[in-house]
């Protein structure tokens, strides 16, 4: 008996579920991970409780209270280790959500749900730009390194270099330190002038987000205290090693991220964490038919409604904004999905928080754009698509020889983005390499790497069996 189906049990999804419950709807939350909390609140399993979670996680208290409230609530079902493998748009305008549960490597049970309302809170992947040598063991995305530190308390190495762009590098560095690694350098590609211009312009807008600023200040203080060298306008342009990472070359980057010749310096290390921002997980929103913005996030109105009737979106799929924005958007999405209005007093605080943190998120995004010339640090044999082992030279050669302007054709002739991850890791990089800086607008076939009708691989045996059950929402929320 589900009125509101929430996909994603990170901050946005849990906040949406709690608000929908408060408004009286029957709620079901699903998440592909083993535990709720999402990437942000990834933590040790219950069997290994730790008093340090509150130190490792910002807003840990908010997670605890959301989780406890939802877990003890008979009007809310939480299904972890459950994937949405496809969403169908039916002729009557309803959506059929196809679920698969259980061990991804074993036989799974499938189920279909036709919810009255759907809240998508699918979050984002962290993105790493390809760098020569990045396929060596010992190279991690910043998010993976943080997940290992938070979820397993494992440090990815003894001497770690962190490189990329954006404020996410701070918490990653902090988590690595807490897990016992020595971070030998943090290299932020954005230049100090750009960061200062956008972080510090119109400081009054940040008043309301002051704890955000102090969170960042806390990280900066941590770096100074821990004597972690933090350099802006620098990037890792090559990773060295034979069987695993032995060193990196860092170089000064110009405003567009092209390495400045003569500034290279070699640093010995045994692990590298790369984080160049985030890519929203859009496949379910695309499958549901939701319109995207020019920046390729899910377009929502002030009530978190998408362009599709009955479908709401919250959190990182609407803009990369961090936990506070995700919590506020989730609360509004859940409340309105359950029949409320964003003007209701019950969500007034969430509304204010959303406006405040949205401005903050916008400023961070403007301060840390991906530089248009990053591809200049690639070498011909630098792998871009890891699943299919397609290198930068092949992409360039095929694009030139076929003169193709269709992304679909380029993918099928190079095989970039066709592997197991279906372009989740390389998609945006492949698009940029094939189209120049203009992105998907340059492709004449209107294709993007965000469309994945099969949102999660499924055993043919599981697909072939009829779903165990089919549930349609009994109510219609006005």
């Amino acid at each position, binding site marked *: 008996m589900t009125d509101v189906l929430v996909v994603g049990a990170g901050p946005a999804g849990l906040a949406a579920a709690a608000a929908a419950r408060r408004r009286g709807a029957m709620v079901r939350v699903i998440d592909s991970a083993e535990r709720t909390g999402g990437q942000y609140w990834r933590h040790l399993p219950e069997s290994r409780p730790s008093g340090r979670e509150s130190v490792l996680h910002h807003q840990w208290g908010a997670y605890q209270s959301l989780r406890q409230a939802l877990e003890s609530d008979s009007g809310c079902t939480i299904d972890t280790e459950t994937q949405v493998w496809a969403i169908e748009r039916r002729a009557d305008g309803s959506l059929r959500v196809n679920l698969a549960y259980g061990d991804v490597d074993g036989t799974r049970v499938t189920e279909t749900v036709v919810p009255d309302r759907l809240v998508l809170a699918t979050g984002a992947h962290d993105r790493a730009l390809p760098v020569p040598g990045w396929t060596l063991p010992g190279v991690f995305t910043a998010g993976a390194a943080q997940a290992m530190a938070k979820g397993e308390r494992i440090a990815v190495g003894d001497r770690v270099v962190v490189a990329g762009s954006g404020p996410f590098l701070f918490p990653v560095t902090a988590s690595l330190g807490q897990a016992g690694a020595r971070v030998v350098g943090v290299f932020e590609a954005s230049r100090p002038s750009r960061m200062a211009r956008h972080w510090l312009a119109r400081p009054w807008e940040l008043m309301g987000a002051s704890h955000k600023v102090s969170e960042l200040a806390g990280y900066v203080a941590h770096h100074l205290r821990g004597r972690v060298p933090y350099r802006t306008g620098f990037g890792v342009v090559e990773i060295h090693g034979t069987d695993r990472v032995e060193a990196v070359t860092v170089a000064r980057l110009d405003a567009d991220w092209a390495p400045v010749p003569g500034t290279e310096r070699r640093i010995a290390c045994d692990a590298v964490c790369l984080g160049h921002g985030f890519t929203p997980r859009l496949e379910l929103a695309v499958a549901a038919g939701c319109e995207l913005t020019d920046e390729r996030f899910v377009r929502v109105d002030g009530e978190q409604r998408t362009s599709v009737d009955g479908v709401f979106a919250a959190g990182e799929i609407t803009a990369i904004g961090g936990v506070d924005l995700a919590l506020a958007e989730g609360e509004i999405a859940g409340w309105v999905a359950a029949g409320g209005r964003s003007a209701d007093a019950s969500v007034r605080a969430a509304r204010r928080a959303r406006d405040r943190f949205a401005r903050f998120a916008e400023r961070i995004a403007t301060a840390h754009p991906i530089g248009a010339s990053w591809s200049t640090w690639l070498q011909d044999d630098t792998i871009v698509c890891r699943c299919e082992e397609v290198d930068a030279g092949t992409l360039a050669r095929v694009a030139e020889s076929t003169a*193709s302007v*269709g992304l679909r054709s380029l993918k099928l002739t190079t095989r970039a983005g*066709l592997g197991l991850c279906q372009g989740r890791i390389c998609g945006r990089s492949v698009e940029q390499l094939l189209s120049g800086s203009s992105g998907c607008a340059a492709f004449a*076939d209107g294709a993007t790497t965000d469309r994945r009708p*099969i949102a999660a*691989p499924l055993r*043919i045996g599981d697909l*072939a069996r009829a779903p165990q059950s089919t549930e349609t929402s009994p109510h219609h929320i006005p």
Partner: protein
Amino acid sequence: MRVVVIGAGITGAACARVLARAGYDVTVVERGAVAGGTSAMCEGNLLVSDKTPGPELDLAVDAAVRWPLVARELQDELGPGFPSIEFEPKGGLVVSTTAEGADPLRGFAASQRDVGIDAREIGADDALELEPHLNPEITAAVYYPQDAQVQPVAAVEALLASARRAGARVMTSTEVVGALRDATGRIAGVRTSRGDLHADLVVNAAGPWAGAVAGTLGVELPVLPRRGMVLVTTRMPHRVFRKVYDADYVGATQSGDADLQTSTVVESTAAGTVLIGSSRQRVGFDDRLDVEVIREIAMKSLRLFPFLEDMQVLRTYGGFRPYMPDHLPVIGEDPRLPNLYHVTGHEGAGIGLSVSSAELLLAQVMDTESPLDPAPFAIDRPTLAPHLQEVAS
């Protein structure tokens, strides 16, 4: 002589190539990108095995001879730096999985042998030697050495690259919005979203959209889309060696029924994935995912290859096959609008039939001897007449 070819799928690319190589001044006009429609959403079949004796099979036999030559020419011309078209003369194995399916399959193969097709009826043991992972419970098997496969998108890009080397121009993101006519009412080019293109001949090779293009130019053409879905697995060790299909595939391709039909076609690709097709469904240009369709495809594939049970589906795609009401492609000049030629309506066989259709077109345009009798493919053939009236009324 200037020729405008409308559509940069396999058919447009094949036509552009032969025309350009014959000395015509060719411009290909494509609404989207090269290989952006049906050609990018299919399996790359070069089959004789699924065709009933008649003009379409004659065309397929011609194509089976032509493809190895075209593949070699393209490779020699474009060099190793160009993506391979992955031409594989791997042969087809058609099996029946039911007791009642065995005799019709044997009878069908016999009728093909009568017209010279190499259709070898083999026993279950021989079939299992060809395909060790095949379900041993099969009731009949026919091996077709003439069946082959290409990577369709690479094939389109290669044919067009070859056409460009012979002087053809390709205009993408350019939509045809009308016809230019001369004083006598003949077509004299096309109006496009990027301006007028004057031409002596216009070739409509817009696949399932050829009906709409014909309408824009001022004539009716009863070509309809029929949707086909394909599943793609993750990469796996090579376990499917031929194009293997269930005999009821033949029934599906030859049927005009609007309802969903699925019949299993399983094959490996050079990349190591396995393609599992396919469905036939008349749902207009509706491209929404329907899980029931892909479930039926998955279910039936297990009848052929039980090991697929544990393999993972990674992707699915659906394309629109250009379908004529009498199941024959249209290749030739439109008597209602002289100098306009249509080359479309190949349904699920367009990749294979493209190179031969292009030769038929070239022979008509140049008024030289045709490799095959063009009459069965003419737009004014008797079997199409009632449908033309239907559209006109």
